[in-house]
């Protein structure tokens, strides 16, 4: 069974994929208030991801959730670079580096700059 990872697109991410074929794949959520790309992940690779990150889990919609921010960031970087959603292998090649970054995230994530 395939699983999915949702990549949320804020304004800067939307700008990075502007004019690429990815634009057509952007999904609207919540009446267009949230934009998202959905990456399909085959079962064996989903298992590899679950094994790499102890808090990761599959939610009731079949989405991989509670993934480290470093993983989500790397995933978007590869998507923007390849202008394609078919990048999960590229991301998995970077797994050791992502795991290293994720460890730091266990203790500190910089808060957003809002008042």
């Amino acid at each position, binding site marked *: 069974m395939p699983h999915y990872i949702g990549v949320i697109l*804020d304004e800067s991410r939307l700008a990075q994929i502007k004019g690429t074929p990815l634009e057509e794949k952007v999904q609207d*959520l*919540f009446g267009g208030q949230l934009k998202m790309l959905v990456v399909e992940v085959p079962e064996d690779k989903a298992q590899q991801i679950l094994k790499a990150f102890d808090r990761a889990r599959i939610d009731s*919609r079949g989405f991989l959730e509670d993934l480290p921010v470093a993983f989500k960031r790397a995933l978007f970087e590869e998507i923007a670079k390849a202008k394609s959603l078919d990048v999960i292998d590229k991301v998995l090649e970077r797994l050791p580096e992502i795991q290293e970054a994720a460890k730091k995230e266990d203790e*500190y994530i910089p*808060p957003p700059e*809002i008042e």
Partner: protein
Amino acid sequence: MGKLRMPPPHGGELVYRVIEKKDYAESMAAGAIEFELKATTDPKGVPIRHVYREIVSVCYGFFSPVEGSMTQNELESVLNERRLESGWVFPYPILLDVSDEDLKALDVKEGDRLLLKLKGQPFAVMDVEEIYKIDPKDVATRTFGTPEKNPEVVRQPFDEKHPGWMIYRCMNPNVIAGKWTIINPPKFREPYDRFWLPPAECRTVIKHVKKWRTCIAHQTRNVPHTGHEMLMKCAAYTGDIEPCHGILVNAIIGAKRRGDYPNEAILEGHEAVNKYGYIKPSRHMVTFTLWDMRYGNPIESLLHGIIRQNMGCTHHMFGRDHAAVGEYYDKYATQILWSEGIPSFGFEAPPNEVDKGLKIIPQNMAEFWYCPVCGEIAYSENCGHVDKKQKFSGSFLRGMVAEGVMPPKVVMRPEVYKAIVKWWKVFGYPFVNNRYLENLNKNLEIDLEPMEIPKA
């Protein structure tokens, strides 16, 4: 239906076992055998429960009519029938457990008075009624049920992965039974102090300040998204001749797990719902109860009903997967209990229809989702566009928050998000992490004033 009114406390009278007068408190403790309360820890040494929370909840009457650590007969009665010896419904064992070494060092016997200390200060006293042994694993399993004995709702055997089962499993093998009395009232730290409303006061506020004739309780251990908000708003349309006058949010505050939202953000997130007018403060109030959540789904719902009836609520909303973790129970176990009963747990009828049962009225609710066709947050029993539904997922929202993306306001109110960020800045982290746990386990939610006990 006629007009409803506030139900009496469960068991008839509100328990209140707190001594405010300092000299009287000191004289009660004089000469008592001292014992410093300890956290229950899992095999890795991680605290998963602190009995102090149960002592507070018992003594302030949240768990009325329970008055302390249960005797062996009471424990058996609860495990076998979910009833106290007096016959009143009660779901969980409430126990002061001690290790063999501590019991030996204490050298107590029935009739002795114990002075229970917390954070090095005198906290409560108890007169020992009975000392007996338990098999913690047996207590754990009988508390939650098994697929064989409770086939109506238990779907798989409980094990180490269930945090509630682990609480009982990790208890010490000796129980000291007796009534608890707090002699040094805890001072809740900020922001807990703003939300501390024990049952006696809560009933007064509901009756005379808020002037709510009817009030529906909302259970939470989460920062509210708009799905929760819609659940509260829609569930509150029940009532009698008109919708419920009030909505009482009652957060369960206790042992935390990594990845949860901090307690502070949960309380202030719910507060933001009324402070910024999404549900007017004249109709919505946020409170909490100290309890290390057992995740007992139908069993937990009984305790929730008891707590909120004691606080003065007429109704209680129950959603799918109420107080659940994993797939140990049927997703609808709580709703099955409150609509037809669960005979194997001692309920031939719903808990509000049995003798010495609860007087609070259940409001069983289905799901909410965002529907792009309806263009609104829709109730699953209304919306026919099931294939278009966009479910609210707590973990999806957590992912968004961690990435530093402000959730759209149709999913989370901006002021609720700001409450998360406020505490994110304080803790350097949006969720519970190891440092948060270390601090919470060391400082707990309270401080105690220094108190000198005269030696006998």
